[in-house]
């Protein structure tokens, strides 16, 4: 066996901060033992030598007993040939009978750029299906839609994360970075931090100002903040005149959102709103950030738009040390939304209904543009259609666990069960893989190379540090193997670098242009910010400094209005449910729930509720509480805390259960479901221990 590299410089497998870390296989004598040592890198600006518990313990999953090492068909271990052959034959038969769209593909925002790209190409070229989308639709889509609309381009942070240190004030709407990506906090100055959240989260406790709004009212709050900014004379007149369009209509639209009106809707005191605006306006440099709390609503796009309007009115975007940004969640949430695993998109952030984009990509792929399918269903609409007469009969799932993570998850599990064929590629038997016809065990993170684009839009190199266990294959190998068996062999290479070189050509000339990025340049520069359109181009750390990539070079302000949650509280379901994350877990928990240190830190779901509400309902700490909504029921033990509003309860969503209740009502622009607010009722089912 060839000696393994020591101390490989790579990045964390989890969130979009992509903390730098060294992975070192441990040896005794000359013998490698089944452990790796992880140490933080201090040469990566994002984490500056920090790591959270998830990062420190990431190695535990490399040799976990939970790893799958052999394919399964109907639950029985089989060889790779048999598994791929079976899947390909079933796919071919289903497409013969029902047409190409009868087979769907679902991807993930944790997949490398190479995999995301290859998955999109596989769907369009090997399967010729329009039915592909991914879990990033549940994550970044509202911010992406709003920033595309306003700026003509969507890159989570349009500046290096270290620029945040230059901002005198940062408003974070609906984000809990102290739990989701702790080292991010190192870039924030607590004295200038404003946090908007229905809960007094770990992040809110760090902040100088916490605006504790009712769930589903972020948009009203943003409109009132803009109203105050205008009334108090904080309009950056010259900037607005030179760099934006649409201000007059936006100004007129927020005259209906005077702060006292918004106070009644949001519950946020007028004085707090005024202080927030004063902090932003008087800081010199200021940044407005949004997270899932503000975005995961059926009005998420408009909420982000309202915050962008505020940023533009104050003259922030395109000024160094200032701006608007969204805090991307999944590890490759940025790159994953750029290269074609989204229903309406082709590589390079191209639109699939744009004839020029189709011609360019078809040429790279060596196919006729007319043979490329058009736009397909968005994530929830796709999951909802599975196994229906009009919907797909087969699904290929990579890097996602929708049984836990999709809204109305009980219904989604039912749709998955109704499929003729469910193929799941994963490294463990996830909640969704348990339902699969065919399970394909994959390599992970430190076992394969690839690129990730972090929350800054910086393309990073993930290096292979250890060999995968025998019996597993990489996602690229799986796609290649399936393509061969579907008669589309030869155009799906399984080597990441070869795939990346093709991705570069496919993205050339697109919005997210990677054509000048190479693995060597990433290694030399410590990452490359897209767009990077030429070999001799260094990348673009700060976009928007001179102009916005819209036809007229100006940012577009769009008037929006508030509306209540799609499902408001009533007599039957009198409390708001909101969901969120815990420090010890990542996304659906498929990985982190299998790491002992993390399950010790956060062993089970809990229901957070306010002491007044607990008193009213006779709930004591540790009681098992049944949470009932219109779409489902779940149970969790009570954790009583004054950190949450008395009209709202909170469930962390890393376990199967909470999302049975969440509302699949979709944003009309982004198709984002309304994860963050629905109405529930509570009942004690058992006493505490």
């Amino acid at each position, binding site marked *: 066996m060839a000696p393994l590299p020591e101390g490989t410089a790579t990045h964390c497998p989890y969130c979009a901060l992509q903390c730098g870390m060294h992975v070192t296989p441990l040896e005794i004598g000359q013998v490698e033992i089944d452990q790796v040592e992880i140490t*933080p890198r201090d040469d990566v600006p994002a984490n500056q*030598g*920090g*790591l*959270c*518990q998830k990062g*420190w313990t990431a190695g535990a999953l490399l040799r976990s007993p939970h790893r799958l090492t052999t394919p399964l068909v109907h639950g029985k271990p089989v060889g790779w040939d048999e598994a791929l052959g079976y899947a390909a034959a079933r796919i071919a038969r289903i497409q013969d009978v029902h047409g190409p769209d009868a087979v769907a593909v679902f991807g993930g925002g944790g997949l490398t750029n190479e995999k995301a790209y290859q998955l999109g190409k596989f769907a369009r070229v090997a399967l010729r299906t329009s039915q592909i989308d991914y879990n990033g639709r549940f994550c970044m889509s509202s911010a992406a839609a709003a920033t595309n609309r306003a700026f003509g381009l969507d890159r989570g942070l349009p500046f290096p994360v270290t620029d945040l240190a230059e901002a005198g004030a940062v408003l974070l709407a609906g984000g809990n*970075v*102290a*739990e989701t990506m*702790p*080292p*991010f*906090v*190192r870039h924030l100055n*607590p004295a200038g931090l404003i946090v908007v959240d229905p809960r*007094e989260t*770990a992040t809110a*406790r*760090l902040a100088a100002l916490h605006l504790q709004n*009712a769930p589903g009212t972020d948009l009203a709050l943003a409109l009132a903040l803009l109203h105050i900014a*205008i*009334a*108090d004379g904080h309009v950056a007149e010259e900037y607005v005149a030179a760099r934006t369009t649409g201000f*007059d*209509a936006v*100004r*007129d639209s927020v*005259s*209906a959102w*005077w702060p*006292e*009106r918004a*106070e*009644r809707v*949001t*519950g*946020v*005191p*007028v*004085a707090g709103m005024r202080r927030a605006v004063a902090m932003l306006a008087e800081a010199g440099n200021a940044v407005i950030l949004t997270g899932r709390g503000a975005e995961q609503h059926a009005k998420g796009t408009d909420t982000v738009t309202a915050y962008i309007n505020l940023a533009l009115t104050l003259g922030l975007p395109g000024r160094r040390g200032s701006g608007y940004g969204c805090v991307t969640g999944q590890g490759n949430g940025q790159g994953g939304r750029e290269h074609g695993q989204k229903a309406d998109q082709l590589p390079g952030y191209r639109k699939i209904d744009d004839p020029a984009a189709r011609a360019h990509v078809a040429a790279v792929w060596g196919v006729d543009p007319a043979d490329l399918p058009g736009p397909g269903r968005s994530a929830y609409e796709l999951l909802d259609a599975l196994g229906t007469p009009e919907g797909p009969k087969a699904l290929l799932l990579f890097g996602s666990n929708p049984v836990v993570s999709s809204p109305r998850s009980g219904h989604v599990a039912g749709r998955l069960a109704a499929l003729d064929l469910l193929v799941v590629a994963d490294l463990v038997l996830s909640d969704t893989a348990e339902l699969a016809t065919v399970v394909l065990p994959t390599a992970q993170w430190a076992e394969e190379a690839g690129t990730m684009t972090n929350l800054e839009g910086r393309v990073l190199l993930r290096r292979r540090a250890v060999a995968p266990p025998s019996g597993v294959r990489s996602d690229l190998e799986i796609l290649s193997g399936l393509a061969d068996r579907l008669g589309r062999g030869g155009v799906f290479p399984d080597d990441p670098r070869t795939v990346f070189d093709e991705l570069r050509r496919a993205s050339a000339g697109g919005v997210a242009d990677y054509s000048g990025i190479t693995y060597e340049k990433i290694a030399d520069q410590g990452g490359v910010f897209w767009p990077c359109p030429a070999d001799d181009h260094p990348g673009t750390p700060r976009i928007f400094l001179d102009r916005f990539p819209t036809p007229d070079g100006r940012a577009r302000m769009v008037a929006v*209005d508030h509306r209540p949650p799609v499902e408001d*509280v009533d007599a039957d379901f*009198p409390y708001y449910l909101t969901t969120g994350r815990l*420090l*010890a877990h990542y996304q659906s928990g498929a990985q982190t729930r299998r790491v002992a*240190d993390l399950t*010790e*830190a956060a062993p089970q779901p809990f229901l957070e509720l*306010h*002491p*007044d*509400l607990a*008193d*009213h*309902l006779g709930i004591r700490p540790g009681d098992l509480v049944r949470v009932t909504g219109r779409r489902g029921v779940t149970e969790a033990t009570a954790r009583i805390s*004054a*950190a949450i509003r*008395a*009209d709202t309860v909170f469930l962390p969503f890393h376990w199967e259960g909470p999302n049975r209740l969440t509302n699949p009502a979709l944003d009309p622009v982004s198709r984002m479901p309304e994860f963050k607010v629905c109405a529930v009722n509570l009942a004690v089912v058992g006493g505490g221990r």
Partner: protein
Amino acid sequence: MRGIVVVGNGMAGSRLVSEVRARDKKARVTVFGAEERAPYNRVLLSNVLAGTTRADQVRLHGPSWYADHDVTVHLGTEVVAIDRETRCVITGDGRRTPYSVLVLATGSEPVVPAVPGAERAIAFRTMDDCERILAAAKASRRAVVIGGGLLGVEAARGLAGRGLPVTLLHLKGHLMDRQLDHEAGQVLGDTLAGLGVEIMTGVTVTGITEGKVELTSGHVEADLVVAACGVRPVTTLAHDAGLHVERGIVVDDEMRTDDPAIFAVGECAQHDGQVYGLVAPCWEQAAIVADLITGADARARYRGSRLVTRLKAKSVELAAMGETHLTDADAEIVRFTHRRGGTYRKLVIRDGRLVGAILVGDPATVGTLTQLFDRGGPLPADRAGLLFPSLSGAAPVSPSPVRMPDAAQVCRCNNVTKGQIRACWEAGARDVAAVAAATRATTGCGSCAETVGGIVEWLCEQEGASA
């Protein structure tokens, strides 16, 4: 071609038009506004008077909005009659506009005090009024505001804020008597007095002459007189058309008049015996009518509104909601008064629900209490926590290393307890770096570094003390 015709382009009428367009991009909509101006937010006129908002910042729709949204607008055009027979409205120039659905949003008009010289007073209702008052204020040395209701208080505060000596006259025994109890009115009066508004309550104006407002006994000098004596619904058009009119145009739960093709919304409408003068109910009504006439929600019904009055005046925090006049005999009352400090807080609770509240001088709890009032949420057994949120559920202050239990989590990012840090110290670690290397504490967000340093220091001191 017939379509939706709206008479009135004020707060209710303009809102109705927006709500219709938000639901139906195609419906044919025509709106008549008596004012020449594009619609503006009347609620903000007090701010314009006070100088905290500019006149060009209160517009609800710009001139291009109507073309952009395919709405026909006739500004400065009064509708003088409704021909219900042929379903047409008739404007002053005799032009007839047919309707399939007519919505009356004719609003209300200021009540002018019935005293000699009343014409010398300027009402405070429209942007034109606001501009006249501001122009007159420039040349004035003393102002009088007649009427100590919400609008009068805001106007007086606004003029005083511009440096003009102001006297506020009120007929009843205390200010804002419809919303406030006597004590709250007194605290409000004190607060306004501290801001340069002279308050006279229990006074009746008998006439207005050059430079003077005459009272039953004595007079007040003033070269600017503003009348804020309430409003009355504008119902002539409806009345002349034979619609059922009492104090306002009588409507049912669909906001429909006794002619099924005609609706009324806003301050001109009377629903369940009630005429509303606040904007929130008017906008709720507009949304209901929009739901019904566009077919967006055929089951939409208006069931009345909960009233919240929130004063908008710099340095005067006041909110009043619901049944504020109940006493201990009818309800559970929780009250705190600190007159010298300008604070008065009163909660009215019935059947465990907040049914009314007065909050003077208390900006922090208004949001929470308003939402409890609106939604009837559960109240804590300890009512004091509602008035003083900091008493209950306050975030614990960062505990000292001495009193922190061993099980307390110090580093959230790496789930490290004080006990683990102690164990690490006992194993030889003597500074933060050594503790970090052994436990990973401080290596996440870094914000616990000070606490970890404190614990290590304390342990070292303990060692020194016991050595």
